[in-house]
Structures are given as C-alpha cells and as structure tokens.
C-alpha cells in the first residue's frame, strides 16, 4: 500500500506554521499506528445489545434485595436437603438437570448452583455437560437465562471435549427474574440470533 501523501499535500500549504506544527503531531501519530477495522459487524452489535437486556444489577437499591434472595435460596436449598459436592472442591447447594431438546438428542447436562458471596451477591455455578458435539473452530456453547422464551442474560461460554465437560462460571443475576436455563451453540459466520435451544431447564429448583 502506498504511503499517505505529505501533510502539506493533505491539508494544503496555506496554514500558519504553528497550526501546521499542531497538525503535524497528529499526522505523525496517524502514520505510526495500524488502521482501525473497517466496520463493526452488525451481528456483533446485536450481540452486545442483548447484554443490556438484563437489568443490572447492583444499584444500591437492588443489592439489598439480591442479598436477601441469596440468603433465602441458601436457606431453602439447605432446608430441603439438596446439598451435593462435586469434584474440584466445588460445593453445590443445588443441582438442576438440563434436558436435551430434539436438536441435541443424546446430550445431557446439569447446572450446579454454588454459594453466593455475601459481600457482592455473585454466586458460583458449574455446568456439567456430555453428549454435545465439539464445535468448529471459533464456535462455542453459551449458557444463558431466558425470560418469556427469550434471551435475557448470559452466564458464560464453554467448549466441550470428549466425555463429560465441567465448567465453572459466576453470575450475579436475580434468578427469580428468569424462567429457564438454556444452552445454545454460537457458530462463527452465522446469524446465531435464532440458534436452536439444545439443553434447557426451569430455574425453579
């Protein structure tokens, strides 16, 4: 690629010296860096736009409610005796089986809910899946929460290997505001906005 023209050619030669010096500084910076990307793909903008579909989160007003909910959930899980411990030291207070849809026949999964951090309201979870195919380069699976059958918030992404895959995640959502856990696949170069649901489970535990 050709070098850009000289600054005087770019802006004309009728500028006072001090103004030309000011522009020369910018000119040197522009010549020193690589070009920005031509454009931001619309699919990316759409994906980022969905991030705010979840009402966030920790305004002070909502923090108190979230902490109260976390405490209630912990008490509920403990009270009904749902207390499981898995590998790697992850202590789950409840396990939610994910059921496979027709799009992922043969797959299975589990969302294991960990304790909430009282200071922040964040809580851990572990997704355990098997039977999902390895995705092509650049693809990944997404665990998210749905409300009224629509995307409402991402919990995390993961890829799978042979056998069972376990992935730790962290979330800070008010679980009661959502209806279902959902797993879908994100595939590069495709419109993933209507990707089929592969695994799903009610958030009611």
């Amino acid at each position, binding site marked *: 690629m050709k070098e850009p023209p000289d600054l005087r050619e770019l*802006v004309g030669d009728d500028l006072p010296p001090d103004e030309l010096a000011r522009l020369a500084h910018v000119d040197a910076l522009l010549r020193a860096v690589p070009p920005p990307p031509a454009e931001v793909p619309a699919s990316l903008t759409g994906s980022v736009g969905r991030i705010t579909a979840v009402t966030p989160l920790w305004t002070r007003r909502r923090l108190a409610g979230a902490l109260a909910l976390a405490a209630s959930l912990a008490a509920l899980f403990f009270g009904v005796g749902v207390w499981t411990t898995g590998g790697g030291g992850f202590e789950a207070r409840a396990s939610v089986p994910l059921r496979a849809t027709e799009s992922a026949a043969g797959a299975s999964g589990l969302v294991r809910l960990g304790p909430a951090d009282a200071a922040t309201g964040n809580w851990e979870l572990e997704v355990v899946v098997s039977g999902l195919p390895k995705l092509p380069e650049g693809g990944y699976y997404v665990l998210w929460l749905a409300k009224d059958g629509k995307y409402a918030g991402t919990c995390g992404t993961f890829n799978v290997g042979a056998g069972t895959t376990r992935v730790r995640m962290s979330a800070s959502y008010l679980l009661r505001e959502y209806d279902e856990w959902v797993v879908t696949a994100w595939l590069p170069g495709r419109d993933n906005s209507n990707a089929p649901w592969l695994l799903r489970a009610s958030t009611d535990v």
Partner: protein
Amino acid sequence: MPVAVATSDTDAQLIERVAGGDRDAFAELYRRFARPVLGMAMRQLGDNGRAEDATQETFAAVWRSARSFRSDRGTGSAWLYAVARHAIIDRARQRREPVAEVVPDEPAAEAGPADEAELSWLTWRVHAALEQLPERERVVLELAYWSGLSQSEIASYLDVPLGTVKTRTRTGLARLAPLLEEVRA
C-alpha cells in the same frame, strides 16, 4: 441496544452512568470504543470470529463491572483498555496461545513485548480519538492514511470536490489535535 446519541459526557462519566444501569450510556460507550476494541482483538488474536467474541466479552464485562471503575485512578479510556486486554488475553488462553506472540501489532513486527504494549496503547488512543470525529471527517482521514488512495481518488470515491476532501482532512486533524495533545508516538 438503544441508538447511541452523541453526548459531551466524558468516557469516565459514561462508565459511571453505566454503573447505574444506563443503557444509553452503554450504547454511547459501545459507539466510541467498539472499533478500538475490535481492532485490538483482531491484531492480537488474528481471527475475526474470536476477535468478535473478545469484543462481546469486553462489553459484557463493562456492563457487569462498571461499578469497579474509579475516576481518581485513571481515565475511562484507560479502564476500558484494561478491560479489553483482559478479555482478549482470556480468549487467547482458551486456546493456550500466549497473546503477545500471536500477532504482534503492526508495524512493529519485530518489537519486544514492551514496545508492543506501547504501540497497542498508542493505537488504542488514536483509534478512540478517531471515533470522536464526525463521520465525514473520520472517513476522509481513514482513506487518506490507510487506503493508499490519493486525495483526488478519495474525492472521486466519495463523490465530493477535492477542496472538500482537503477541508475535511484539515478540520479532522485539527479536531484530533487537542484529543491527542499529550500522546507521543
């Protein structure tokens, strides 16, 4: 996402508004920084799909973590840069690829890590400043510096008089000058 409406708010003010759940502020931050983030991710990951993932993760982290921003510790742009770097490094680590060695920033292909980091930061600041220009000026500058087109060819491409190209170039550079006054190549 709400359509970003140009605002005179600083980056720091926008992040603080995002911390309070302001979607409009988030949209404006995305408008200002989507291309710098995507550009950095593409240079360092070398793959469009993964770069888009890292960009998405960057803005998800911004939405989640805006409360952690402290304006007394640095600029909003610097905070966003750090968030983006972390997202890109995380994405690179998923493939066990050391991010610094994947695709160094051009044109310093043989630079060491410190030089690469310096160029990455410089590039970030220049690209972020470009996003603050009116579209017509930004387009002319990008064509002038990175397309290889002559001014006459740019005029023809944009279907505007040559004098307009020069005026927009001059105005755009002048508008960038205060934004990049403290930046050194």
